[in-house]
């Protein structure tokens, strides 16, 4: 409850439209641990109120990027956009860990025109800002909105190449490998903002299977001084993990705030 209150305050001060937080984006891999000389995974991608329950809107598979274990770009295959979710496949041809997902960088905000408040269109790209704000607009408020939404899939033994932080925005810096998670064993994950440990940020964890229980069962963690959280998984299954924070260090001209999120779907297996 307390964390939700903090989120409410953050939302209020940053003028985020309510709808922006209503639906969580998620990726649902068919597997994260794959054996053999080569393999395939298939992934569902959507946004909905309850994670992993496809009942609202697909995420475009065209946005998805694959990074192979050697750091090169891989391919999204067999993309399909359905009513409630899109799906795509990734052919795993190299041993090691793949990173699959999307990176969103946009702006949101508002301005006054002829005495009326107008909102910038949702999901506006930063380079389209000039065209989006009409001449004569005043009180222009621009905020950067950057989000990453990823999964990690490993063929054979886990590797670390795709886990290297980008140094830009909110990064995931796992101490425990994200494809080496077991129920009952704590995992340590670090988070960085522009390459520096992100202390005191919120990390939400929601287990799969929302339809089959009455409570959300959402857990909330706060990163320590090293920017790390320690998460113990109560049971095997898929978990939706999202870290979010905001600051004033946007690189977009005119933007006053920067809102960042990192979302991952992690698979926890039986010990």
């Amino acid at each position, binding site marked *: 409850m307390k964390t939700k209150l903090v989120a409410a305050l953050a939302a209020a001060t940053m003028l985020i439209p309510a709808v922006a937080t209503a639906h969580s984006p998620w990726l649902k891999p068919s597997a994260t641990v794959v054996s053999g000389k080569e393999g395939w995974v298939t992934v569902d991608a959507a946004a909905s109120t309850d994670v992993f329950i496809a009942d609202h809107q697909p995420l475009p598979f065209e946005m998805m990027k694959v990074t192979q274990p050697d750091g090169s770009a891989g391919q999204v295959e067999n993309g399909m956009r359905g009513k409630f979710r899109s799906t795509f496949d990734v052919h795993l041809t190299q041993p090691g860990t793949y990173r699959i997902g999307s990176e969103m960088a946009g702006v949101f905000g508002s301005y006054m025109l002829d005495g009326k408040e107008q909102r910038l269109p949702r999901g506006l790209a930063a380079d389209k800002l000039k065209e989006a704000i009409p001449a004569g607009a005043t009180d222009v408020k621009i905020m950067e909105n950057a989000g990453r939404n990823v999964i990690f899939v490993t063929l054979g033994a886990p590797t670390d190449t795709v886990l290297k932080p980008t140094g830009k925005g909110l990064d995931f810096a796992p101490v425990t490998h994200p494809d080496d998670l077991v129920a009952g064993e704590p995992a340590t994950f670090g988070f960085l903002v522009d390459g520096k440990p992100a202390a005191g940020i919120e990390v939400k964890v929601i287990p799969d299977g929302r339809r089959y229980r009455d409570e*959300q069962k959402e857990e909330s963690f706060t990163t320590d001084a090293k920017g790390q959280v320690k998460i113990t998984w109560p049971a095997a299954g898929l978990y939706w993990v999202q870290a979010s924070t905001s600051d004033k260090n946007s690189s977009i001209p005119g933007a006053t705030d920067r809102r960042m999120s990192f979302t991952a779907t992690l698979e926890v297996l039986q010990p």
Partner: protein
Amino acid sequence: MHLTYRTILPATAMASLAGPALATTVDLSITLPQIKTAEYHRPYVAAWLEQAGQPTGRTVQVWYQQPRPNAREDGTKWLRDLRGWWRKSGRALDLPANGISGATRAPGTHAVSANVGQLPAGAYELVVEAVREDGNRETVRLPIAWNGKAATKAATAKGTIELGAVSAVVKP
């Protein structure tokens, strides 16, 4: 058999069972708690009467998102999330239902009086279920011994998350 059954009922009960004109009324009070959250949506709420071993119940009230112009999705899409009610009564009910269905309600105490038709004497449970988007689901059950007479005391129950105090009186 049928005759014997009727003769052991109290006279008042017999009177209430006698004709179709005598409808049964449920006076219901439901408290929806204030919930502090980043994103509050009013809960969907259903109340229905059911009997042990009976597959179907009768709906007393159902509150859900009413049609809105230009809405991307119709509120009826989420009625199935009132899972207990949907199975016992909702899926067989034509909505909207006059005097039964209505819009979602704000936190606070809501008193309603609903006509449930002719209710045969027997042991019932009045079930109240609430489910909230981005929230939880909760069900409370109130025992109702219906003998055709208004109970002197209301049946009460209290939820812990999505429902506050709930009370009901069934009367002729």
